[in-house]
């Protein structure tokens, strides 16, 4: 397989305007990945599948990762003029990384027997702009896995043929794999039609029944 840098260059040559960035990985596994911008993701995926030297025809694994907003505090030494004298002052600098949701695709080639190539797509933020393009039209194998990412992380895949919850029940509202998810005391609780009956019954028990 070509190196990641070569693949990146090839993608940029083949898909006009695509923004591709290498995401390094420091662990001994050495599996680095490519981040692709959302508007060109489908074209890039198509290229990766069709290119005769790459032929990534097997999308093995699709998963989400939640990166909440984090604040890193660093102490930086700077020199500043204080009362005309140059003194070194310690400044605390805060860098904020905005939160986002990430979708990771592990691609292999069955035809050429190489891989993995790791693609990453990112959403704008974690609250209202959580769309990424669906790659199900390119690899059918993403269908259920993207549904799972939608269900558990709340990423909305535009262009997905059947985006519904898959593991949680349809009436469930939250996304349990997010880092800030708080589990309810009682999972089973759901408002039922019976609630109204109960309220009425209680009211009539206190003699408030209107009718």
């Amino acid at each position, binding site marked *: 397989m070509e190196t990641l840098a070569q693949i990146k260059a090839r993608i940029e040559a083949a898909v006009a305007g695509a923004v591709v960035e290498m995401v390094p990985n420091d662990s001994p596994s050495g599996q680095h990945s490519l981040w692709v911008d959302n508007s060109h993701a489908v074209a890039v995926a198509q290229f990766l599948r069709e290119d005769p030297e790459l032929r990534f025809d097997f999308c093995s694994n699709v998963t989400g990762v939640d990166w909440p907003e984090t604040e890193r505090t660093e102490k930086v030494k700077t020199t500043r003029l204080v009362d005309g004298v140059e003194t070194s002052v310690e400044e605390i600098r805060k860098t904020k990384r905005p939160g986002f949701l990430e979708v990771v695709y592990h691609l292999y080639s069955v035809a050429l027997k190489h891989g993995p190539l790791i693609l990453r797509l990112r959403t704008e933020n974690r609250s209202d702009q959580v769309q990424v393009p669906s790659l199900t039209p390119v690899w059918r194998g993403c*269908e259920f896995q993207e549904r799972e990412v939608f269900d558990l992380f709340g990423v909305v895949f535009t262009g997905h043929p059947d985006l519904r919850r898959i593991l949680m029940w349809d009436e469930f509202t939250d996304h349990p794999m997010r880092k800030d998810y708080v589990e309810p005391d009682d999972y089973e609780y759901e408002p039922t039609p019976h609630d109204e009956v109960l309220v009425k019954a209680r009211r009539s028990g206190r003699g408030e029944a209107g009718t």
Partner: protein
Amino acid sequence: MSIAAATNGKRHRLVPPPSPADGALGELLEISMGPQHPSTHGVFRMNLVLDGERVVKLKPVFGYLHRNHEKIAESMSYLGSMPYTDRLDYFCSLTNNWAYALAVEKLAGLQVPERAEYIRVITAELTRLQNHACLGGFLLQDMGASGTPLMYAFREREKILDLFEALTGARMMCNYMRFGGCRCDLPPGWREQAQRLVAEFPAFLDEFEALLNENEILMARTQGVGVLPASLAVNASISGPMLRASGVNYDIRKVDRYGIYDRFDFQVPLGEHGDVYDRYMVRILEMRESLKILRAALADLPEGPIMDPKARLRGFRPKPGEAYGRIEAPKGELGFYLISEGGPHPYRYRVRPPSFINLTILEDMCLGQLVADVVIILGSVDIVLGEVDR
């Protein structure tokens, strides 16, 4: 050996293959099959729309067994997730252990000693034997062969589980592998016992094949049913015996050569038609290949340590980074994707469950088929709900 050779090239056709209803649909009937239906291999539901007896729409519904294994694992030490992996595909706890251990070893850069690698191969292939034997039994049970083949398969499985118990202490929830090796060494006499089992197993396979392979009812029920073309299988990320039954030569043991699989001489049985019959036969033939691997591995098993000396049990904190490790589990490609932030818990822990992804094209395989065939098509996918729902 090819399937045609194993069955003397026999293909029977007692009933004409189901043809798609000719345009005009009759009155449609919507039914919900499951989640307590005995044929669904667990709590699994299919919402079917039927035209007469033919399927026009099928939507699988699952999640009844969902416990968010991934979330639990993200609040637990790396070691603490190991016993939970046993419970994913509860038929094959040892291959689950291996996949997870492999991913963590990639993440932390641990080396597995030779002897441990051999033990891993032996236990994984034994797991494959018992999984495939039981799948054959279950599949026939779905076809109406109540009990008999299944009980024969369970009888053989029992012997393998005895071996697992002697080695790991538990029959199904083995929790045996550790990052950088295995938990304990083989007990005395285990190797001989395993060799005896491997020597006796072909007799069972012969019997099983004589019982079924040429059975006309089996052929009529399975041949040409639930056909999965190779191109769709690859595109839909199907893996394992199901992919190979469609004729795609892709076995991760051969492709990734993880562990020490490059030292063994075995073949990858392939199907030609991609139907239920081929999926059944691929598994039967795979068992024979597993026996070859087992024979070689049990003969060459070297002496030596079984743990990487760098591995730590308590206070294990891999460096920040991520890793994806995958193995050829009996049901398909089982992968674990881990992200470490340097802490004692994984930041992200993901299981790539083969039987979940193999269900993607269940609808495609069932469209136009009879409702009775849906049961055996599902059976031939080989799902375990502990893994589908996680």
